[in-house]
């Protein structure tokens, strides 16, 4: 179903509660009463079309208006990706970590497997952290500096001083696949780990990992299909100044 501006915001959540993530990450608080998507967006200073395109593409895997995304202000996208990172590091990852720690008691007979899983996930968190930090500290500020320079039609001193000859290809060189480890963790838990005594806890851990994996996939899709091509566009635009 296509999400449109005249729908009520509350109905949108009833339609697909996973869109709560989009609403939160775009910076809109709850408490909508009977307001439409358009009204809520205007009230919160969010571009309605940007919100609609994001919601539609999160709601329907096959709806991905790449060309449209490329025309939006890149800063909106960066802000959205930033909030997503924050959500991972402050909520999702600690929640999963907590659930793994909870497994210790259930895996008593096989202390070793608990240690293995815990270490595996700790290593994953470290990798994810490095990945996110690179984007937060380097890529996003770079995108902002590019965007500012284009708006002012001249290369800003910030872009010159802080980034020199940095370009997006350098980022791609150390951009590695952060989903593979989660994929492995899933299979180890499903297929190979001796089953723990409490299935309910174990299932909810798996459920969280599946959700995080899907979320990360959507996140990388935005980075790879929109952010990076957008940066390339800006880079060539600046070269032609």
């Amino acid at each position, binding site marked *: 179903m296509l999400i449109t501006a005249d729908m009520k915001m509350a109905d949108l959540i009833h339609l697909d509660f996973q869109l709560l993530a989009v609403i939160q990450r775009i910076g809109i608080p709850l408490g909508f009463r009977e307001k439409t998507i358009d009204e809520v967006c205007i009230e919160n200073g969010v571009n309605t079309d940007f919100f609609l395109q994001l919601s539609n593409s999160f709601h329907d895997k096959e709806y991905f208006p790449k060309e449209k995304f490329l025309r939006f202000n890149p800063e909106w996208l960066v802000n959205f990706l930033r909030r997503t990172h924050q959500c991972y590091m402050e909520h999702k990852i600690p929640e999963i970590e907590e659930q793994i720690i909870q497994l210790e008691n259930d895996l008593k007979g096989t202390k070793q497997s608990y*240690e*293995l899983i815990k270490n595996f996930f700790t290593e994953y968190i470290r990798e994810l952290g490095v990945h996110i930090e690179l984007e937060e500290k380097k890529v996003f500020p770079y995108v902002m500096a590019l965007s500012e320079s284009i708006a002012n039609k001249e290369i800003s001193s910030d872009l010159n001083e802080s980034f020199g000859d940095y370009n997006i290809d350098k980022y791609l060189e150390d951009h590695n696949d952060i989903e*593979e480890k989660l*994929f*492995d*963790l899933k299979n*180890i838990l499903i297929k*190979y*780990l001796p089953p723990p005594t409490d299935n309910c806890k174990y299932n909810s851990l798996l459920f969280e990992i599946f959700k995080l994996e899907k979320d990360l996939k959507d996140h990388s899709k935005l980075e790879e299909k929109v952010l990076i091509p957008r940066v390339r566009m800006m880079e060539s635009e600046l070269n032609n100044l």
Partner: protein
Amino acid sequence: MVRILVAEPSYLVRKGLSTVLNELKTITKIEEISGQDELNDALKSLMPNLVLINTTISSLPEADQVLKKYGSESTIISIFNSPLPDDGNETTLSVFDTKPVLLTKLRNQVKKVQKSVIQQENSEELSDREKDVLQKIALGKINKEIASELFISTHTVISHRKNITRKLGIKTVSGLTVYAILNQLIKLEDIS
């Protein structure tokens, strides 16, 4: 389970093909992509047994390379945007094909693939050689070292690694290490 990748730019054609494939009532996993830029990731993650690809995509040099690299074990069926003569060639289909023609072609191809899939799935256990390779991977050795220690070529090591990943559903070295320890191929103390 037969894994099928549909690579077709037209949304309507893609949906139509998926619908026809679903009518075959074989247990399949169908993934759809619309262009060459998604081909690499889709081939790597899905490891499809069957690839239905539009010639406007497969004729691109980049796509051709990717197909050779990651699709060498998949059966490829080309989708043409023009009418084709009914010459019994089952590895090509046209968007103008009638339902009976499409169903016949696809059913035969899927059946063929299914046979080999069933054989493969029955041999999901790691072979002794694969276990040797896995043990060395888990100990942190690189392909070259593994090759010289087992007296095989690096090419063979790579193909063992592919099979191990396919059979276990584990891609990363640290994931394989966890598997190796859980299955007593190596001991926790062996790795520093």
